[in-house]
């Protein structure tokens, strides 16, 4: 066991007490030349270690079982088998969020794509009628042309009413399409709750496993894996708090122009 682990909490006080007592006894026996006694103390020491190891492993196993039961990953009875595990439920829920946001985005874009030509037509017709109207005011219009304009203005009013009704309808549909925020927000909050719960349970399992490591004197060498930026890491959630991330298009432009772009 390394020195750095000496201060770790967790070992049973009973165990540490025995450890201390027997270590000093061991030293005494070796000093006194009583090697038979020394060997038997070493055996006792290893027994103490084994006993506490079994106890910790037992606890770890029980907690693991508990955790698995909590998340219903391992359905035992028909009822549980029927019910989805919370985990696969969580991924279903997130898929639902993707589906809902996709639907809302497409619905909104459908309506926008329907509305844009209406707005264009209104604008074009209004421009033409304005020009005609000004010709009339300048008295540049023949009576036949005026009669034609008269009819045209009439038709414009009719289509203006219909088109603005259609636009209004599209806009209120777009408004309604934003209800996904409420629904997906609730789902995401539920999943966030589950993730927190899982994290807490995993953390207590890790603490327990560290007791086993202590008893067996295991030291893990965990390599730090660096994320490859080439693959792409997606949107930065807390861009403002980081130096290695740009905070917007202006930052990108500054960076690129500093590179001579």
């Amino acid at each position, binding site marked *: 066991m390394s020195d750095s682990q000496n201060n770790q909490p967790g070992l049973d006080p009973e165990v540490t007490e025995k450890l201390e007592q027997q270590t000093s006894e061991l030293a005494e026996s070796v000093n006194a030349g009583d090697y038979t006694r020394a060997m038997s103390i070493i055996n006792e020491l290893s027994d103490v270690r084994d006993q506490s190891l079994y106890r910790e492993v037992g606890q770890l196993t029980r907690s693991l079982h508990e955790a698995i039961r909590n998340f219903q990953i391992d359905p035992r009875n028909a009822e549980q088998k029927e019910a989805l595990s919370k985990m696969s439920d969580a991924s279903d829920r997130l898929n639902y969020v993707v589906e809902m946001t*996709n639907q809302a985005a497409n619905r909104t874009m459908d309506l926008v794509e329907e509305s844009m030509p209406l707005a264009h037509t209104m604008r074009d017709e209004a421009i033409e009628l304005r020009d005609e109207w000004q010709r009339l005011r300048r008295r540049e219009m023949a009576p036949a042309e005026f009669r034609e304009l008269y009819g045209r203005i009439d038709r414009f009013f009719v289509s203006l009413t219909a088109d603005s009704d259609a636009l209004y309808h599209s806009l209120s549909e777009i408004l309604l399409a934003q209800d996904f925020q409420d629904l997906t927000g609730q789902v995401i909050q539920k999943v966030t709750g589950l993730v927190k719960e899982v994290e807490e349970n995993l953390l207590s399992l890790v603490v327990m496993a560290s007791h086993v490591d202590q008893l067996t004197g295991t030291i893990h060498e965990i390599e730090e894996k660096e994320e490859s*930026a*080439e*693959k*792409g890491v*997606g949107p*930065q959630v807390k861009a403002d708090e980081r130096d290695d991330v740009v905070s917007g298009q202006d930052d990108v432009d500054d960076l690129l122009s500093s590179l001579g772009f």
Partner: protein
Amino acid sequence: MKILIVDDFSTMRRIIKNLLRDLGFTNTDEADDGNTALPMLKSGKYDFLVTDWNMPGMSGFDLLKAVRADEQLKDLPILMVTAEAKRDQIIAAAQAGVNGYVVKPFTAATLKEKIEKIFERIH
């Protein structure tokens, strides 16, 4: 002017397609990652490529490198429109030969400005 839009999300492709149409570019095609885009680029005579970075399969960064390494495609103007916002990534994209870099979320004005800037340079 024939433009290929590459993004794994169909909604984002649709947004870019609409914005390009408003800018007067009506001849656009779509692909959902680099693996689909590359053969299209090789056979399709495109004048401009708009690509996302983070996509399953072949990423936009790999697509950028593949295009620059291809004798026939190497001069194709490329605009990256992406949520990737690390300085290292932007520098890497610039070094790999990207012509413009737009971070999501973006505005129509930004997209317009970057596209116009790219065309100003090549014409």
